């Protein structure tokens, strides 16, 4: 029931909201979602073959899709970049994670005493593509909000653990900077919470509570879904100015959508190229994990 209501409110909000086009959104856009439905029906037909590449790869490996700006694209460069990314992925496990997931990153640090440093935090933003892919972790330690930017393919990173795999209602959580500190406080010694295999990634529908104004950004203009008390702090003039900058027509702007994303056919090509490698890596990791979890019974006496 709760889920239904949530989905309803979300879709309603999306319909009337100004939608900022995010290059690699964690959520399929409305058009994509609508397009996905008839496609599934087609697949059931006898003539159409099942696609080899799983459809969720574009969300799991968003950085494999190049920058959609046409002037910057080049097939050879993109190919070399993908080869390098796979080479790096053979060395280190870079797990699936989303904005809103809680991560622990262990990296080599020449300044630290033990030459490594570990930081636990919630991923508030993911951006860029290829070898430049990076994400921001945020945590509150000793009542002090701290953010660290990591590059996904940086060779000084030794380990990336996902402690809690989940999504949030928004594509970036910069509003946690203006929220009460308890919403971005996470225990450093947190244990990983494993998900069942094959289970869909849960969406955490927690609504954060903002501090009173002044804020870092004008959150009331961004149609955020994960904020509870935005109405409490804004006045009529804010509401009016927020209404003025809304662009409700943008969701009909198919050209804008097209320019801001990689077309589906190209996505298929790209993932068909890297799919076998990524799949074998996934299987290998799974096998290793099982091996690790099996504890040899202690020989008593």
């Amino acid at each position: 029931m709760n889920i239904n209501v949530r989905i309803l409110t979300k879709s309603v909000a999306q319909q009337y909201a100004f939608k900022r086009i995010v290059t690699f959104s964690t959520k399929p856009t409305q058009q994509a979602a609508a397009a996905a439905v008839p496609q599934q029906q087609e697949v059931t037909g006898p003539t159409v073959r099942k696609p080899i590449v799983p459809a969720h790869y574009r969300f799991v490996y968003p950085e494999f899709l190049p920058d959609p700006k046409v002037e910057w694209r080049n097939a050879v460069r993109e190919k070399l970049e993908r080869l390098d990314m796979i080479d790096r992925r053979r060395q280190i496990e870079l797990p699936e994670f989303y904005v809103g997931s809680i991560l622990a990153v262990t990296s080599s640090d020449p300044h630290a005493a033990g030459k490594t440093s570990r930081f636990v935090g919630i991923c508030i933003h993911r951006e860029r593509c290829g070898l430049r892919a990076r994400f921001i972790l945020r945590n509150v330690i000793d009542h002090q909000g701290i953010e660290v930017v990591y590059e996904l393919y940086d060779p000084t990173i030794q380990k990336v653990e996902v402690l809690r795999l989940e999504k949030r209602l928004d594509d970036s959580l910069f509003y946690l900077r203006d929220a009460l500190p308890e919403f971005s406080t996470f225990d450093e010694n947190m244990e990983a919470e494993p998900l069942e295999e094959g289970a869909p990634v849960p969406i955490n529908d927690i609504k954060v509570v903002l501090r009173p104004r002044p804020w870092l950004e004008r959150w009331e203009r961004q149609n955020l879904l994960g904020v509870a008390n935005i109405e409490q702090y804004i006045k009529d003039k804010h509401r009016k100015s927020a209404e003025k900058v809304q662009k409700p027509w943008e969701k009909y702007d198919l050209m804008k959508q097209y320019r801001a994303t990689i077309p589906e056919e190209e996505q298929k090509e790209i993932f068909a190229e890297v799919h076998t490698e990524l799949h074998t890596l996934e299987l290998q990791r799974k096998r290793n994990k099982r091996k690790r979890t099996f504890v040899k019974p202690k020989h008593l006496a």
Partner: protein
Amino acid sequence: MAQLLLRNFTRAGNAALLTKGTSSSSITATSAEPGSCQLHTTPACCEIRKLARLRVVDNSDLGKRAMAEGRPPRCIHVYNKRGVGLIGDKVLVAIKGQMKKGILVGLKQKQRIKQPQFDSNNLVLIDDNGSPLGTRIHVPIPTVLRTILKEKTLAKGADYTKVLAIASRYV
């Protein structure tokens, strides 16, 4: 009361962005917290330059009292050639009518990759010899400070590495 104090702390830390709010909200904030001067008309600036408000994060008596009163120290000079304080730089601050020196141990400004960015501009008060006035820093400090402060400590002159000794935690 304690809550109010804590709030004061965070407000002082975020002082540089206070001005984004409209004057009316600032005025209401001021009226809610008598004694603290919260009305600022200068634009938000995340850099540490002259007259930037800082947050003292050690347990020195002077710093604690200044923060509790809601009158955070202001930077009145940055000891480098650029005039903009970066992490590990020495600054001169005006705190409770006195001039004291301090070291920046956490910044709100964009930092390099893998180096932490803080929600407030943190300061540790030191004397002329580089020894800190307090005995403990109660927030994490970045590990890169270990290298920077060691480099800044020369054979003759102040020894800044004493600040590292009172740190409770590194990030």
